[in-house]
C-alpha cells in the first residue's frame, strides 16, 4: 500500500499493529502456560499467568487511547478507518482471551491437589492445542491482511465446539460415577467452557479481519455447534 503523505500517520498505524501483535503473542503464551499450570499442578506457574495478564490489560488501554487520538486528529477514511476500528475490536477480543487464560490459571491453582481424571485432561489438552492453533492463524491473518485465512478460521471453530461437547458429556459421566468428582469436574468444565469462549473470540477476530480486508461482513450465520445448552443427563449415560 502507498504510504501516507503525512509520515507520522503511517507511524501511528504501524504502532497500532505492533501493539496488537504484542497482545496476541502474550494472549497465546498465557493460554498455553495456564494449561501447563493445570496439567503439571504447578500453582507457581498459574500465578505467573495471573500477573502477566495485567500487561495485556495495559496494552488494550494503550490501543484504545491511540485509536481515539487517531480518530480525533486524523479523521481516518476508508481502509484506514476500517483498520483502526479493527485494531480496537481485536484488542478487545485479545483482552478477553487473556482473562479467560487467567481464569483457567486460577482454577489450576484450585485443583492442584486433587486427583486428575486423565482422559479429561488430555481432552482439554487437545482443545487448548486447537484453540491456540486457531488464534495463531487469526493473528497471522490480521498481520498479513489475509481474508482467505480468516474465513478458514471462522469455519473451523466448529471443531472446538465439537471438542467441548464431548468433554461436557465425559465430565457429566465422571460426576455421576462419584459425587466426590463433582468439585474438580466443575472446575474442568469451566475450563473447557473458557476454551470454547476463546474459540468464539478468535472467530470474532477472524470476522474483523475479513471485514478489514474486504470491506464486507463475512456472510451467512456462522456454523455453531455447541449443543451443550440442550444437553441433559440421560439415564443411558450412566
Amino acid at each position, binding site marked *: *500500500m502507498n504510504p501516507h503523505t503525512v509520515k507520522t500517520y503511517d507511524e501511528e498505524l504501524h504502532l497500532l499493529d505492533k501493539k496488537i501483535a504484542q497482545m496476541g503473542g502474550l494472549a497465546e503464551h498465557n493460554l498455553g502456560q495456564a494449561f501447563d499450570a493445570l496439567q503439571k499442578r504447578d500453582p507457581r506457574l498459574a500465578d505467573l499467568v495471573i500477573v502477566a495478564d495485567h500487561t495485556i490489560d495495559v496494552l488494550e488501554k494503550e490501543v484504545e487511547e491511540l485509536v481515539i487520538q487517531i480518530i480525533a486528529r486524523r479523521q481516518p477514511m476508508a481502509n*484506514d478507518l476500517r483498520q483502526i476500528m479493527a485494531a480496537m475490536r481485536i484488542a478487545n477480543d485479545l483482552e478477553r482471551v487473556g482473562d479467560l487464560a487467567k481464569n483457567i490459571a486460577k482454577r489450576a491453582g484450585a485443583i492442584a491437589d486433587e486427583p486428575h481424571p486423565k482422559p479429561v485432561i488430555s481432552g482439554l489438552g487437545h482443545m487448548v492445542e486447537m484453540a491456540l492453533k486457531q488464534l495463531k492463524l487469526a493473528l497471522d491473518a490480521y498481520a498479513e491482511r489475509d481474508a482467505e485465512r480468516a474465513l478458514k478460521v471462522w469455519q473451523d471453530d466448529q471443531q472446538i465446539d465439537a471438542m467441548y461437547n464431548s468433554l461436557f458429556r465425559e465430565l457429566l459421566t465422571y460426576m455421576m460415577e462419584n459425587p466426590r468428582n463433582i468439585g474438580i469436574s466443575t472446575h474442568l468444565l469451566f475450563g473447557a467452557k473458557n476454551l470454547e469462549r476463546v474459540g468464539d473470540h478468535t472467530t470474532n477476530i477472524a470476522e474483523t479481519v475479513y471485514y478489514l480486508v474486504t470491506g464486507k461482513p463475512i456472510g451467512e450465520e456462522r456454523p455453531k455447534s455447541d449443543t451443550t445448552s440442550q444437553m441433559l443427563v440421560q439415564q443411558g449415560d450412566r
Partner: protein
Amino acid sequence: MDMSTVEHAMLTPSATSAPASGTKVTARACNVYYGEKHALKDVSVDIPERSITAFIGPSGCGKSTFLRCINRMNDTIASCRVTGKIEIDGQDIYDPALDVVQLRARVGMVFQKPNPFPKSIYENVAYGPRIHGIAKSKSDLDEVVISSLEKAGLLKEVKDRLNDSGTGLSGGQQQRLCIARAIAVSPEVILMDEPCSALDPIATAKVEELMDELKANYTIIIVTHSMQQAARVSQRTAFFHLGNLVEVGDTRQIFTNPKEQRTQDYITGRFG
C-alpha cells in the same frame, strides 16, 4: 484502451445507457477542451434529483470544469469547447434552440468566494427575480426576498438592515446571501463550487445545515476539497482525477470501502 478507460467503462453508465429513474442531470461522454488542453475526458454520470452530490479530487482534475458544463458557464470562456451530451430532465441543454438565460435561472451557482453585488442586501436577492420576471408586484418581490433570506438561514441576522450594503456582511453571511440570491429565482439545480472554503467552522456548519434543508426541494452539486465535508453533506460522491471520473457511488461506500485504488489513495491522504 488503457486501464483507466476500462475501469471507467465499468463504473459509469455507458454513453448510450438510459439514465436511472429519479435522475435530474445526465451527462454522457462529456469532454471539455481549453484550446489544446483536454481538461475533462469522456465523463458519463447520472446526478439524482433532490439530493446532494459531492465532486472531489485533486486540484486541476476538472471538478469546476465539469460543474460549469451543467449551466453552460463554459460558454463564456472563448477557448473552451464542450462535446458530448448533458441533459436536465431529459432536455439537451446544449440544444442551440435553448435559451441560456433561462437555463441559468434553472441552474443556479454559488462560488468559492462570496461575491455579493455592491448593492443593498435587498437588491442582491431581488435582482434575479426581477430580471426573470418572477415577481409581478412590489409586494410579490418583497415576499420572494424575505422567503429566500429565510430559506438561506440569514433573515434573522439581516431583517433590520435590508437596505445596508451586502458587501458589509461577514464572509459567512455574504455566502448565505449568495445562496439566498441563487434560490430567489427558484432554480431546480444549485451548483456550489467550494462554497465554504472561506468560512469559519460555524458559518460552514450553517451552510451545511442549509444544504441539508434545501435538498428536499433542490438538486445540489457541491465541489469541495474537504473530504469530511463531502462525507458529512452528500448522499453521492464522485471522484475525479486528471480529467477522468474515476469512481462515483454512495457516499457511505466511497468513504468506507471505495472500489478504486486511486479513490482510496486520495481520500486516505496517500496521493503522489
